[in-house]
């Protein structure tokens, strides 16, 4: 057990080292959610005049930016793994006497931690622009959900990376994160959505995660919005984690 923790720690440190060694590669992923949040709120800000938002559009859209940051980070984890596969580093990693599940846990845990970076940057900018600061509980729930969604997207993009074994599959990883986060109540409350998007958001489990993050920013934290978010997250991690573990188990055979 302690050896597994050591391996996971080493893989997380390696992923975090990449940020300081190649900051140019990390900057777009950190900036993009904030740019999206600022851009969307500046362009579509008047939409909150339609009613039903219970806040200004910028506050409404901040949780979307947080989840986008998690999605981008998860996708980047898959792209980095594909790069390691292409370069041969991943084959060398598989030679180490650690269970493959431990290696997967290390890569996924690194995504969870890295997701806090774009999220923190976005929140600093949002608070500076007047978005109300949620309660500590609201922030804590948001952080946990953001980290959880990064794990979900990392599991998905790892599955893709192990299947295609090339960085050229990057758009596939990014598009899934895009669809997952935006085909929800991202832009408007459910009653204002068109029928097809309302149906999509009903089916999409990320909607519950988004509502779980959003409750801290609009209104207050309520159990009825909290438990569905964590249940949805657990379900997604179970399904996509199993697929990633299966892909890793089959890799090289």
């Amino acid at each position, binding site marked *: 057990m302690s050896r597994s923790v050591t391996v996971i720690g080493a893989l997380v440190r390696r992923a975090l080292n990449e940020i300081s060694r190649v900051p140019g590669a990390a900057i777009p992923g950190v900036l993009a959610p904030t740019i999206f949040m600022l851009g969307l709120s500046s362009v579509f800000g*008047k939409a909150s005049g339609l009613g039903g938002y219970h806040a200004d559009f910028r506050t409404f859209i901040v949780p979307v930016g947080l989840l986008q940051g998690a999605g981008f980070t998860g996708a980047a984890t898959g792209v980095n793994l594909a790069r390691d596969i292409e370069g041969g580093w991943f084959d060398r990693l598989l030679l180490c006497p650690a269970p493959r599940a431990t290696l997967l846990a290390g890569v996924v845990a690194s995504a969870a931690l890295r997701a806090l970076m774009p999220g923190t940057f976005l929140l600093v900018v949002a608070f500076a622009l007047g978005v109300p600061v949620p309660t500590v509980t609201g922030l804590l729930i948001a952080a946990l959900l953001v980290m959880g969604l990064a794990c979900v997207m990392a599991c998905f993009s790892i599955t893709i990376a192990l299947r295609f074994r090339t960085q050229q599959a990057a758009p596939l990883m990014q598009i899934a994160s895009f669809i997952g986060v935006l085909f929800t109540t*991202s832009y408007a409350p459910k009653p204002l959505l068109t029928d097809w998007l309302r149906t999509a958001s009903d089916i999409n489990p990320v909607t519950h995660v988004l509502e779980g993050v959003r409750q801290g920013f609009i209104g207050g934290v309520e159990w009825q919005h909290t438990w569905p978010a964590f249940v949805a997250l657990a379900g997604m991690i179970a399904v996509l984690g199993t697929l990633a573990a299966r892909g890793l188990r089959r890799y090289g055979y």
Partner: protein
Amino acid sequence: MDPFFFRVVWALARRSLRGTLRRPQFIAPLVLFPSMFLAVNVGGLTRTTALPGFPKVSGFLDFQLAGAMTQSLLIGGVATGIATALEIEGGFFDRLVASPIPRVALVFGRLLATSVVAAGQITYFLVLGFVFGASVQGGVGGVLVVYLIGVVAGVGFGAIGQAIALRAKNASTVQGIFPLVLVVLFASSAFFPRKLLSSPVDTVARANPLSYIADGMRTPIIQGVGATSVTEGIVAAVLVVGGACGIALLALRGRLREA
């Protein structure tokens, strides 16, 4: 002009197009991301057409089509830059420089290919719009105006991408300008009427040529040809292409001097 120059431009354009078509991972982002964004914008914000100050439109999809085209053309510009940078990284560009061909053909060959891709992008979004119920109020003339502004602007964005690639000489730097593309796009009226933008974006949008390009493509779709914004769109696209080609040629000269 020397016919040899046109033959070289044509040959380089064909090569670029073949390269693009062989790598669908380069084409996919040009249409996938703007399509997704279009779907979410229309699905989530369709009721905004009821806001006071929103122009009269048959549907929000009609209004958003020009925004999606502009976004796609901008991403196309980044893709042109990446393709140029990859040729520099791989050494093919140096081999072209060493061959007895007019140097400016290196820029214009790639841009000719970009214009064909831009026409393809416009076609894709028009077809997508028609499939989901949009209509072009300006009829056939309106469609031609959309193509004219779109292709000219697309070439301009491609020239900007090339200029950056010739200066940076590596694909990852060109890729790194993507967030900047988003900034420029959001600071325009590509997605929402200028009157309804929040401050200070409404002021910035007034000076942003992208606003005029997007509005120039939008007007034939939602109103018809003949409005002022069509002329403004054409002028903005021509200015962008002129300025960008000038910058790209200067960057080429700098690169040749270094070589």
